[in-house]
């Protein structure tokens, strides 16, 4: 059984989100920027993180922020190659994104393919002025030319490791751990 290595505890996550919120506010400091800011969380944990960021930002700027949720399942480029189709969740974009400043929120930035799918989907809801990306963890191993604008923590990982973000809303606890991918029982030899 692989042993988990804890990267962030609950206070660390809270602190990281406060820092991310501060960075987003700094980048949207003008009244026009504040007005156009929209947070969009990517299912599942990106949605929980976006909700938390929304609460922190709203408290600081004393303004209600629109919050959307995005499910990228129908935009994945690997549906043909995976065995079982993922469960489709809801996409809910409450405002027209044309001329808005969108901050996409996700838990882990890895290959960049999820973000590519998210960008394709967002393009169908209008033409935002710009789209930025906020992630709790950047673990590297990019397969596409994508980078985040706001990063909570950058971690050097191996490709056979898994970064697991656990949040109270979805997992009952707040922590980020790094663990080894479980070994397959049988190795197929060509």
């Amino acid at each position, binding site marked *: 059984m692989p042993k988990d290595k804890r990267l962030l505890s609950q206070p660390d996550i809270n602190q990281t989100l406060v820092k991310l919120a501060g960075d987003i506010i700094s980048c949207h400091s003008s009244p026009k920027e504040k007005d156009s800011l929209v947070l969009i969380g990517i299912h599942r944990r990106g949605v929980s993180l976006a909700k938390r960021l929304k609460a922190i930002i709203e408290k600081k700027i004393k303004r209600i922020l629109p919050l959307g949720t995005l*499910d990228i399942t*129908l*935009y994945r480029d690997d*549906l*043909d190659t*995976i*065995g*079982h*189709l993922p*469960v*489709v*969740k*809801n*996409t*809910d974009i409450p405002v027209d994104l044309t001329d808005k400043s969108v901050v996409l929120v996700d838990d882990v930035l890895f290959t960049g393919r999820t973000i590519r799918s998210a960008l*394709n*989907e967002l393009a*169908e*809801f209008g033409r935002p002025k710009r789209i930025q990306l906020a992630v709790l963890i950047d673990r590297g191993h990019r397969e596409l030319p994508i980078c985040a604008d706001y990063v909570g923590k950058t971690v050097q990982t191996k490709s056979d490791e898994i970064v697991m973000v656990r949040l109270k809303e979805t997992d009952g606890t707040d922590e980020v751990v790094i663990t080894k991918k479980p070994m397959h029982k049988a190795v197929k030899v060509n």
Partner: protein
Amino acid sequence: MTPDKKFVWTQTHLLGLENLSAQEITHILDTAESFKEISTRNIKKVPTLRGKVVVNMFVEPSTRTRMSFSLAAKRLSADVVDFSPSTSSLSKGETLKDTARNIEAMGIDIAIIRHTAPGTPHMLSRIIDASVINAGDGAHEHPTQGLLDIFTMREQKGRIKGLKVAVVGDIMHSRVARSNIWGLTKLGAEVIAVGPPTLIPQQIRELGVKIAYDIDKVIPEVDVINILRIQLERQRSKFFPTVREYARLFGINSERLRHAKKDVMIMHPGPINRGVEITPDVADGTHSVILRQVTNGLSVRMAVLYLVSGQPKAEEAE
């Protein structure tokens, strides 16, 4: 509404609701719920089935089901081919089996079939590798109609378990009735089949359905009245004396509805014979969800296309 995390969809075809579990039916309904949003977008299209080919094989006439499937497939970015028996080699005597094999040789991924003969989609699913969706096989099943009916009930009433549903009319010849009965009873609803004795087969009791011959006794106690089309083309067989008598004894009109629950829901799979099984004021009235059923049909069919498209075929999975 949240699907069980451990549940994994494993069906390659959708042949009927009889062979689906309650969990599988609920999974389709939950997936359809997520697809509803796509139809509200300015660009009503997602790339999910890009590169897949869907063939509409409607050997029996259809307007809304065929259009609904076409639109659903197009909204998922599939290429859609329509097949019409009158302009196909079927009219030259080619067997359906050969026609299907030839179409499959052109590289189709999903075949949607409607046929007058019960069991045709089941037969096709055994001879071609593509996924097969039953769009109505004789008087046997019409699973996507059953699913969209159940979806609409759940959407409007918030539940299926414990609902009392009257299915009114020609139960004997109705594939919609069978799919509704299988689906609803599996999800815990109580179904009452209502109509003239000549149009209700007694064996239907074996499916856990109550039978009633007097609509006025049933109306006050039900949450949903699902009205079936009276198949006028079958009236040569004289299952009831006259259409006028049927309308008087079983037609749903506003006078009858005065005795119904305030929030009773009126459903009809279409096409409607106005003035026969339902009066125009009821069909267009506040209790009616007939057009909502059509709208929901799109989401349900998108969900079904998505779900059957994803599984490796049996031989590949081994």
